[in-house]
C-alpha cells in the first residue's frame, strides 16, 4: 500500500501537473531499500518509529552525496555531522508523525465509505433507489454536458492531485460554466496544507532554522 502524503515539493502554478508523487512511505522505503508495504506496516502499527527515523538519518548521512540535492534545506557543507544527523532525524520524525495522522484519517474515510456502500448494497429498497438516482443523473448528463466536465475534472484531480488545479486556466473555465464555487472549493482542497499543526524544532535549531513541511 502506498499512501499520499506527498514529500515532493508542489509544482509551481505554471508547471502542471506536478512531479510524480513521492510519499513518505515510498521515500523511506527507497532510502532504506525496503519494501513499502513493510514500511507502512511499521507506520500503521506505530512500532519503533524513532528508531526508523534514526535509521533513515543514518543512511542519508552515509550516502549524503545522493541526498544533498533532494534535501537542499539542510546545511550539508557547514553543519557538524552529528548536528546534521540530528536535524535529519528530527525532520523524518516530524514527517512520519504527519503521515500517521494522514493514515488514521484515511482509515476513517475508508470505513465510512465502505459502511455506506454496504448499507446501500444490502438493503433492496436503498439499492433500487440508488440505481434509479444514478439513472436520473445519467439522463440529466445527456442534456447537461457540464456534468461530464465535472466528472472528468474529478477523475483528473484524483489522478494528478493538486498540481493539476494550480495550473491556471481553470478559473476562466469555472466562470464560463457557472461552477465557480465548486472549482474554488476544489482549488482550496488542492492547496491544502498538511494536517499536522506543529512541527517540532530541530535540535539546536534557532528560530530561523525552519524545517520545511510536506506539501500534501
Amino acid at each position, binding site marked *: 500500500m502506498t499512501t499520499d502524503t506527498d514529500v515532493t515539493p508542489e509544482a509551481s502554478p505554471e508547471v*502542471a501537473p506536478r512531479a510524480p508523487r513521492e510519499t513518505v512511505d515510498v521515500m523511506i522505503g527507497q532510502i532504506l531499500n525496503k519494501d513499502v508495504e513493510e514500511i507502512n506496516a511499521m507506520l500503521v502499527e506505530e512500532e519503533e518509529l524513532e528508531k526508523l527515523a534514526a535509521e533513515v538519518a543514518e543512511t542519508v548521512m552515509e550516502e549524503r552525496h545522493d541526498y544533498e540535492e533532494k534535501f537542499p534545506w539542510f546545511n550539508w557543507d557547514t553543519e557538524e555531522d552529528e548536528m546534521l544527523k540530528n536535524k535529519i532525524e528530527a525532520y523524518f520524525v516530524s514527517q512520519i508523525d504527519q503521515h500517521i495522522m494522514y493514515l488514521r484519517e484515511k482509515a476513517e474515510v475508508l470505513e465510512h465509505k465502505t459502511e455506506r456502500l454496504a448499507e446501500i448494497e444490502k438493503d433492496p429498497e436503498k439499492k433500487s433507489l440508488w440505481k434509479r438516482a444514478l439513472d436520473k443523473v445519467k439522463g440529466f448528463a445527456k442534456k447537461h454536458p457540464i456534468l461530464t466536465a465535472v466528472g472528468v475534472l*474529478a477523475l483528473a484531480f484524483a*489522478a494528478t492531485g493538486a498540481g493539476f488545479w494550480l495550473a491556471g486556466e481553470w478559473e476562466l473555465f469555472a466562470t464560463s460554466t457557472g461552477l465557480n464555487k465548486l472549482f474554488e472549493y476544489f482549488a482550496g482542497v488542492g492547496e491544502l496544507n498538511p494536517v499536522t499543526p506543529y512541527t517540532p524544532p530541530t535540535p539546536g535549531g534557532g528560530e530561523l532554522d525552519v524545517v520545511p513541511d510536506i506539501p500534501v
Partner: protein
Amino acid sequence: MDDNTTLYLTDEEKTVFDKLSDELKEGWTVETAVIDYEETPQKQRIRFDVMNIQSPALQEFQEKAKEAKTKEEIEVLAAELDFSSFNDVDLTEIFYALGPVSIGILIAQFLSGVQSDEDIQGILGMSIIRNLLFGPK
C-alpha cells in the same frame, strides 16, 4: 414523472427552488436535507485519494491525465468521455469523492438553471445520492 417526488434540499437550495415558476414546482415536495457528515478539506482530499475507478477507459484517462501539461490536453483526452455512459460503480466513486459540499454546489447551480421537469428529475437523483451517502443512516 417518477413516483418519487420528494427533493431533499438544504435551506440554501430550497431558497433557489422556491424561486422557480409555480409550473415547474408543481407536483414536487421539498424536505430539508440533513447532512450527517463533517466535511473538511482534508477529508475531501482523501476521498479523491481513495477513488477507485474500475472502467478501463476511465483508468486510461487518469493515466494520460497525469502526463498532460495543459487544460487543452485534458480536454482532448476527455473528448471521448460521456458522464451518461459511466458505469454505476465509477459514478458512485465520483460522487463519493465529490462529497456533500460539492454535490450541494452542483445541486444549487443546476437548480438555478432548471427549465423542465426532467431537469428536476436529475437534481432529484443528485439529492438522493447525497442523502444516501452522507445523510442520516
